[in-house]
């Protein structure tokens, strides 16, 4: 019944219809290029995700309905979707999707890709004009890319393919004017832009894709301009992060990833969260639960109540990675493809942002969302629960729900 978003009663400035109709100045809008002067963006948001635990496919329409239902949580300044397991025929190639503001940027990126490896297929990402959306509309392009056998990146020959891809994406985002790498993982893609969630799903015609897992995000930014690049999900390699909240420790978290060589170009806390997952889990090989503990750790006084071995590990995780503690309110949905498509949902350690999980009656699908309505609209009979503060829910294709987020964390293992 809430599906007709455009008929929703207006509550905010951006819902008043076309802004020039009421004489408001039209704010600048941005595509791939970072808005001038932007050095941090934040806001409230809605997040939703779904995963088929058997590895079956879920249509993009499902995630679109989940996200659009939570219309209260967005104001038209950005929405996006990430899909995993949607290109089985190219599963071993990096799927790189870009926003280009100008043709020159596209030429530059293609030159770069061709010099570093091979493009097996390139295509314009299908987009569909949506009347209510406003320019600019960056060109969205997709390349299936395989790096060279003998890789060299700025004199370095020791980089793994994944490390190289991280460098490549960050290089494009920082140094190639008018180009932004939106996603770069294998068998995954991000569809995002500046608009309401229902506009973005129409813009990309999400129904044409189906995948093993979807994550999504709609924005209610409080002080940042409308920028396609700044919309969620933020992605690096096969990681994607949808994030509702405001990390009050951004300056510290940013230092943490920059010390490990990541270059922040989008300047959102979400970007830093994505890099943090990549660094902790892929590079430092922390188990997901340990990485989640680092970002939303127990209080020291609670750690002292653990058995001595767990307390020792918990304390060392906290102090070794104290710069990775995400302070302030957040709930995040993290997607990953390696080693198998995985969804992680995590809320801050005081649970200052909502997070709800659900499981379909047949047990084949799992859901995560900011609000229960998002689960109910696609699975009215779903079993739902709220994970504990700072305790991750983890679901993996082929393995089911590994963790509900209600377990006693840490003790008793992974």
């Amino acid at each position, binding site marked *: 019944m809430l599906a007709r978003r455009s008929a929703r009663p207006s509550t905010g400035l951006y819902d008043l219809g076309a802004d020039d109709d009421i004489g408001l100045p039209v704010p600048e809008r941005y595509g791939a290029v970072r808005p001038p*002067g932007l050095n941090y963006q934040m806001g409230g948001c809605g997040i939703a995700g779904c995963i088929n635990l058997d590895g079956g496919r879920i249509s993009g329409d499902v995630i679109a309905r989940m996200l659009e239902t939570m219309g209260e949580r967005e104001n038209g300044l950005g929405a996006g979707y990430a899909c995993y397991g949607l290109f089985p025929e190219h599963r071993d190639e990096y799927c790189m999707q870009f926003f280009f503001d100008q043709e020159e940027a596209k030429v530059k990126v293609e030159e770069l890709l061709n010099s570093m490896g091979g493009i097996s297929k390139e295509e314009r990402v299908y987009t569909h004009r949506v009347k209510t959306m406003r320019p600019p509309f960056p060109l969205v392009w997709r390349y299936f890319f395989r790096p060279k056998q003998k890789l060299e990146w700025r004199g370095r020959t020791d980089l793994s393919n994944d490390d190289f891809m991280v460098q490549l994406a960050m290089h494009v985002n920082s140094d190639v004017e008018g180009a932004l790498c939106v996603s770069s993982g294998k068998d995954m893609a991000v569809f995002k832009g500046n608009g309401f969630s229902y506009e973005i799903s129409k813009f990309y015609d999400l129904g044409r894709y189906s995948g093993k897992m979807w994550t999504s995000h709609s924005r209610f930014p409080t*002080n940042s301009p409308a920028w396609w690049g700044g919309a969620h999900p933020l992605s690096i390699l096969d990681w994607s992060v949808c994030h509702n*909240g405001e990390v009050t420790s951004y300056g510290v978290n940013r230092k943490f990833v920059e010390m490990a*060589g990541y270059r922040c170009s989008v300047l959102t806390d979400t970007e830093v969260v994505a890099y943090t997952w990549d660094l902790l889990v892929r590079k430092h090989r922390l*188990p997901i639960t340990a990485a989640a503990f680092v970002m939303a750790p127990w209080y020291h006084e609670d750690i002292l109540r653990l058995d001595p071995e767990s307390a020792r*590990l918990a304390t*060392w995780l906290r102090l070794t990675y104290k710069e990775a503690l995400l*302070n302030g309110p957040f709930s995040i949905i993290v997607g990953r493809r390696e080693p198998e498509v995985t969804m992680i949902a995590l809320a801050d*350690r005081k649970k200052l942002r909502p997070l709800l999980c659900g499981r379909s009656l047949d047990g084949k699908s799992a859901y995560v969302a900011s609000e229960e309505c998002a689960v109910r609209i696609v699975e009215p009979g779903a079993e739902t629960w709220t994970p504990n503060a700072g305790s991750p829910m983890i679901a993996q294709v082929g393995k089911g729900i590994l963790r509900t987020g209600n377990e006693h964390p840490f003790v008793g293992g*992974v």
Partner: protein
Amino acid sequence: MAQQSSSKRRMELDAPERFMLVVDHELCKKCKKCVNECSFRALEFVDGGVKPVGGCVACGRCINVCPAHCLEIRQVPSQFPAHANFNERVRRAIMSQASTGGVLLTSCGTDIGYPVMFDEMLLDAAQVTNPAIDPLREVVETTTFVGGRKGRLEVKENGRLYMEEDPAPMIAMDMPIMIGHISLGSVSYNAQKALFTAARQLNILAGSGEGGLHKDFHPFAPNVVSEIASGRFGVTGDYLKRTAAVEIKIGQGAKPGHGGHLPGEKVSALISQTRMIPLGTDALSPYPHHDIYSIEDLQQLLSVVKESTEYKVPVGVKIAAVHNIGAIASGIVRAGADFITIDGFRGGTGSTPRIIRDHVGLPIEVAISVVDQRLTKEGLRNRVTVFAGGSIRSSADMIKAIALGADAVMVCTAAMVAMGCRVCQQCHRGVCSWGIATQREELVSRLDPDVAATRVVRLFRSWNEELKEILGAMGIDSVESLVGNRDRLRYFGPNSKIAEIMGVKHVGEGWG
């Protein structure tokens, strides 16, 4: 000749008195308590009444002990013809040097009114987009760890998560405060006992200062950071092994490029035993460590100390903030220090040449952010604990120092003030009327270690509560999320260049 003039008979050419004690003779009970308590001998009892005889330093002891409340210290209005350039301070220094012909000694931190950037910065708070946290209702953590870190942790899975062994020695403090290195010698037995007692009650660290650890204080060792300074006074294997951490002191903010200086007046029998030096001799530490003439030498000493303490305690390095502090700090981390203590030029001391105290070094605010930025850029910041000191006067200074990039602050002068110090800058004379910076038994006994310890404990507990209030207001529930979080600071002063160097935005600049 100047040497022959007693302190009572002022030479005609000496500078006039700065302070004058005014006695209300109608109220005075003639108990002579003030006369007896004045360790600077500025009062005499003559002709049935108390008379000031010159030499008052405004330590305030007489006022606090006077049962009749009949005393008042007046700052004598300037007796000099006005001159903005040759101001009174300049002329007094000239007169003093003309009278003595020496390097002027002084104590405490500089009293020159240089700009204080702490006072030119404002903190952020949470509004709407994130909730503020009430520390009385929610957990706000201030636990601070001291030690070196590896930057990554090996976690293994074996049905459950585990790690092999502790990566490095680490100390947990209940608050991001360390009582700085105040040596036995510069202060009295009772003063150091009070500071150590406070550190133990607060579960924080306190520095031993140069000169070893008195045997009576061995029970405090788990809260003490021992110091290896250039004089190596009191340094034994036992001393290093016993304490919680070891610090190699290269420099001190009040006297960068200068060694420790304990005037012979303060080298009593007690001090002579602990420092292992002859009675009554000046204890002058060399300017450099004579086994450290370069960074590689420091690396060797760090290795030696780590070997001799069997890698069981963190080993750090203390440096004065000087112009090239960023590169120096980077070198020290690379040399293997587990923690670095940076001491700003406004830092205190028990004795220093005035010329160095007042004119050498770098303000701590700038030093912290430069070091934090440099170490971050080089990927080293998460390997080391950074202490910052050099005039941390209040919890506001502490919070801003942490936001600029320090893990914890080192505080001395504020702790002394809590114990009774009035910052009269006469520590080097060894006649502290409050029993703090003196070795004279009749003066030392004035300081009750338990009372003094309680006052220091109260002071730092209240600072820690204020820290929690500010963290909560910012929507931060653990102090580590403030360390180097310069985004939550704004500069509100006249010099935007300094803000740029500190990496702090100007007031009015938002986030997006």
